[in-house]
């Protein structure tokens, strides 16, 4: 037993954090809100992050979900305005497993970050960042299809988080768009990726709020010295710190299919998404309340993180959806030994 990341995994995480602190400050997120191009995707491609899950022979790093989960957490912390979850956690692995001509053609471009992929999975598919993407992975009749964006009809939707703009995509399923990979697994990967980002978002909002409450004085003292403020933040941290190992455990379940049956993998992912969503929305709520009116203003950066948290908490199944999945699993499981 060892429930810890390796030195290498943590070092990679730290490097990504450093890069994003420099290249993805809130101004960059705001630029994406205004539809302006950003440079951060190119930097992440150069570092290998964008293609980290692609096989080495396609130019990737051949890494798995345990490597990826910490990196996605950092992307969440920065509210990275790019479809990194869909690209690196969902589409590349599906193509890697599906193989065939589509994979041969697209994997090298996706690994290098020269092309961007996104996905629209689930009952009412909302496709994030379709304006940036050249390839769409979508599901139809329980099967996955990869469609070139030029063959899709895109309708922009009014999205709460314009750093993650959503689109409706209409396309035709054909024999050669089909990808021989598992839809359930792709969905679980998307939910896991969103969960990892939600951890980073919660962490960011808690840190911002701690800093604010140490600086902001009322009644002659820092508001962070008041017990009502302290307890609210303590609860937010509690939710985050208990969501963390649940998300890491889900990453392990996805990365080690040999140790985990598909139903158990989905159970782990559902727990992760339910906890991470709650942790981030709870942190958002505490952050807004403790910041007060400044946090409610457009000019202040909190809303960039808060809206990403709301968006991702709802994406790929919200808390109720995933708790229902856990409930179904509990109702169906055979009494088994621990």
């Amino acid at each position: 037993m060892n429930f810890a990341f390796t030195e290498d995994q943590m070092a990679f995480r730290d490097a990504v954090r450093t890069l994003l602190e420099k290249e993805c400050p809130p101004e960059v997120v705001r630029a994406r809100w205004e539809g302006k191009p950003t440079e951060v995707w190119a930097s992440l491609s150069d570092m290998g992050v964008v293609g980290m899950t692609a096989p080495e022979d396609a130019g990737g790093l051949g890494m798995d979900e345990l490597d990826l989960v910490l990196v996605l957490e950092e992307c969440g912390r920065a509210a990275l305005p790019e479809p990194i979850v869909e690209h690196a956690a969902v589409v590349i692995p599906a193509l890697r497993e599906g193989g065939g001509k589509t994979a041969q053609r697209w994997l090298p471009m996706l690994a290098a970050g020269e092309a961007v992929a996104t996905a629209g999975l689930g009952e009412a598919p909302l496709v994030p960042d379709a304006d940036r993407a050249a390839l769409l992975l979508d599901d139809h009749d329980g099967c996955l299809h990869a469609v070139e964006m030029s063959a899709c009809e895109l309708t922009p939707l009014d999205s709460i988080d314009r750093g993650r703009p959503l689109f409706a995509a209409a396309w035709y399923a054909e024999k050669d768009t089909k990808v021989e990979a598992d839809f359930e697994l792709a969905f679980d990967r998307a939910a896991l990726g969103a969960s990892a980002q939600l951890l980073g978002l919660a962490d960011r909002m808690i840190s911002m709020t701690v800093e604010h409450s140490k600086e902001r004085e009322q009644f002659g003292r820092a508001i962070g010295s008041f017990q009502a403020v302290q307890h609210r933040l303590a609860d937010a941290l509690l939710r985050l710190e208990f969501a963390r190992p649940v998300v890491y455990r889900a990453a392990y379940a996805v990365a080690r299919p040999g140790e985990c049956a598909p139903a158990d993998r989905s159970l782990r992912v559902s727990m992760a998404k339910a906890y991470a969503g709650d942790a981030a929305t709870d942190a958002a709520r505490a952050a807004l309340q403790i910041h007060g009116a400044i946090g409610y203003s457009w000019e202040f950066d909190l809303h960039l993180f808060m809206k990403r948290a709301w968006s991702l908490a709802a994406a790929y199944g919200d808390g109720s959806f995933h708790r229902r999945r856990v409930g179904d699993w509990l109702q169906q499981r055979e009494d088994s030994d621990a």
Partner: protein
Amino acid sequence: MDLTYSAPEAAFRAEARAWLDANVGPFRDASSNTADGFAKLREWDRLLFDARLSAVSWPEEYGGRGASLWEWLIFEEEYWAAAAPQRNSQNGIFLLAPTLFEFGTNEQRGRILPKMASGEEVWAQGWSEPNAGSDLAGLRSRAERVVEDGRGGWRLFGQKTWCSRGAFCDRLFGLFRSDPTAERHRGLTYLMVDLRAEGVEVRPVQVLDGEEGFAEVFFDGAFVPDQDVIGEPNDGWAVAMATASSERGLTLRSPGRFLATADRLVELWRARGDRSDPAVADSVVRAWMDAQAYQLFTQQAVSVLMAGEDKKMGAEASLNKVWWSELDLSIHEAALGLLGDEAQLDSDWLRGFEFALAGPIYAGTNEIQRNVIAQRLLGLPRG
């Protein structure tokens, strides 16, 4: 990351499970809060001790097996899955013993630990006083230094209260004010007291369920020899804080206990719940998931401890304590919800609920824990 158990760990689990299945039956329903139950549970501790299962993580010389933290967690999972009873000896094994390992002398360890694990000497804790609860440093019970007939020691005066199982215990550990002139956190000494000694009076106090689960203890000149001081005289605060960290950290409430209760909740739901009621389902699922999350958090913490030199949790222990105490309540509240009208009747679930209600109060109230989390983990200024 590797979340598989080794062959010796799996073998240990199988041994513990088989032994518990064969032995726990007659002891399952014994309550450590009644005289009869307490006597029965002394026998249970003795049986565990003879199988070297009473304190598996202790060194062999004191009756343990030198088990790793992983093996300890495995034992606890099996212990609670077998519906084994709450231990008489828990305050000794989980609170005093870690203090003796860190601050005690070899003589003290050899004299005290085996009898503690075998149930021969059962320990109560003596922290709270009528005017010192969350503000423990306000305690007033005194220890006066004496040398009588060439024998050095301490005479105790004052009162301790809310001593769990104190009415039936043999000895008590706690803090006493030995230097009244010193600043409040200094001048305290950590002492071990014989509850049968002259000058000690123990009065049972009924707890929420009507059993005599608490005691108040009055000291009127009771003698404690020097050999029963832990650490240095007047340095008791530091020693006690180490114990407090054990209490709310890993050792007092292992995940196994809550995993077992959460599984029983799911059984109850499957047996008699309205499966189509989404509100009921959500309460069951949340409580069950909270137990899983506690196990994962613990596994993560143990991995850190096993990799490092220092085998203690720091302020993170406060996160732990808030989580397990509130999780225990969630499980029992969900179960009472499933019982519907029958929740009005006495049941194991009701008893468990009443016990769970104490969780956010003992071992440092959850309000104190949230202060610790805010100030020591988040770095917010003291009020």
